[in-house]
Structures are given as structure tokens and as C-alpha cells.
């Protein structure tokens, strides 16, 4: 058994949507029956939020988002690298939810609650988000 398995997908929007990113993870889980339901739900939620942010932040142009999932016995690492506008006004490091009746602004807070580490870097001309989630069953 290799210590780490890597899976990749390329999302080009349009025409791809957040559903294509989700379908990628669903197909990966099919090959990895030992990933717990909690870890699957967390990663699906995190990726959906990340890709939604990329698409919504670049509404009037094509954007490419490369997705990499690295599965190790003790951790899941997800990376997205996108060609969208550089992310500015990064929210603070806390995981604060907006007001109860707000209709936006929960995505990044949800991500923070589901991962053990989250980093953002602008590398080259790409926005790179990396998350680490320690596996429950490690």
C-alpha cells in the first residue's frame, strides 16, 4: 500500500459547476471505502465552499480551478489552485458566523470548523488554498 494516494480534477467554469467538483470527490470515495462518513462529509462541504467562492468571485469570466486530494492514512489534504482574481480582504482567522438572518458569508467559517489547518497563498498568478483534516480513524 502506498502511504499516500493523490487524485486530481480540473474544473473549468463555465461550463463546469460546483457539481463537477462534488462528483470528483464522490468518485474518489468509491475507491476509498475506509474514509469515514464524517471525513467524507467534511471534505465535500469544504470543496463545495472553496469552488463556490472561486466561481462567485469571478462572475464575468472563465476560471480554471485545479483540485488535488491527497489521501494518507492519518490525514486528508485538499488543495485548490485557481486562475481567478487575487483574493483580497481575507477574512480574519476566526470562524465567526454572520448574523442569524444573513444570507451570505458562512462559507469560510464553515470550512474553518471542518479542518485542522487552512492556508491561502497567492502563488505565481494563482490563488492556492490548502486544507488539512486529520482523519478520525487514524
Amino acid at each position, binding site marked *: 500500500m502506498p502511504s499516500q494516494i493523490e487524485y486530481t480534477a480540473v474544473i473549468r467554469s463555465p461550463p463546469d459547476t460546483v457539481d463537477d467538483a462534488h462528483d470528483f470527490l464522490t468518485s474518489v470515495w468509491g475507491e476509498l471505502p475506509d474514509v469515514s462518513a464524517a471525513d467524507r462529509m467534511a471534505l465535500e*462541504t469544504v470543496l463545495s465552499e472553496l469552488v*463556490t467562492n472561486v466561481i462567485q468571485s469571478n462572475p464575468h469570466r472563465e476560471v480554471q480551478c485545479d483540485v488535488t486530494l491527497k489521501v494518507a492514512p492519518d490525514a486528508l489534504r485538499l488543495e485548490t489552485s485557481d486562475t481567478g482574481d487575487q483574493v483580497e480582504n481575507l477574512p480574519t482567522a476566526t470562524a465567526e458566523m454572520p448574523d*442569524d438572518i444573513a444570507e451570505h458569508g458562512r*462559507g469560510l467559517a464553515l470550512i474553518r470548523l471542518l479542518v485542522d489547518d487552512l492556508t491561502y497563498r497567492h502563488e505565481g498568478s494563482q490563488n492556492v488554498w490548502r486544507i488539512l483534516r486529520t482523519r478520525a480513524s487514524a
Partner: protein
Amino acid sequence: MTSFQVDEVRAGVSVIRVEGRLNMVAAPELRDVVAQAVASGRTRLVVDLSGVEFMDSSGLGALIGALKTTRQAGGDLRIASPGEQVTMVLQLSNVDRILKPYRSSDDAFTD
């Protein structure tokens, strides 16, 4: 593909049964379905989430927008039967404080 089915289950209460994912793709459709229901006089709505395999913050935003739409028309919106992932997202986001999940759509307007 996410689908929406609206049924008037008893006088004044309609159930919107959602099947599929409630994400950035489907959330605007839910907002539209609710807006149309309210426009046609159906202001007491239950969103049955039992068929929703996945929801993210876009889905949460649509539910809250739908809640406001019904209340502005003098009605209300309740949610019922969320699965495991949907329950996780409702709890982490604290949205379950304003949209309390009912066990079934039959229970949602009994109080």
C-alpha cells in the same frame, strides 16, 4: 440534477420536497420555487430535506432567504427531515437556531 416538488398537504400548508444537492447550482432554484409558491398564496411552507444528500452555505442562504420571503407575506417556513450532512451544516452554522429541524413534514406546522 436537483428537483423540487410542491404539494399542498392540507389547508394552507404546502410541502416542497427537494431531491439532490442544495448548492450554488440549485439554491437559486429553491428561492424561485418559494417565491412562486408565496406569489400564488402559499405562505406556510415546509421544505422537506429528506431527499437532500448535501447542502452547503449556498443552500443555507437560500433557506434563510425563503424564510424571509414567507414571513414578509405573513406566513412562515419550516424545515423537516434533514439527513446527516445537512444536520451537520445546520448545527455548525447555528442556522438551526432560526430554522429548527422538524422530524417530519407532518410535524412541522402542528404547533
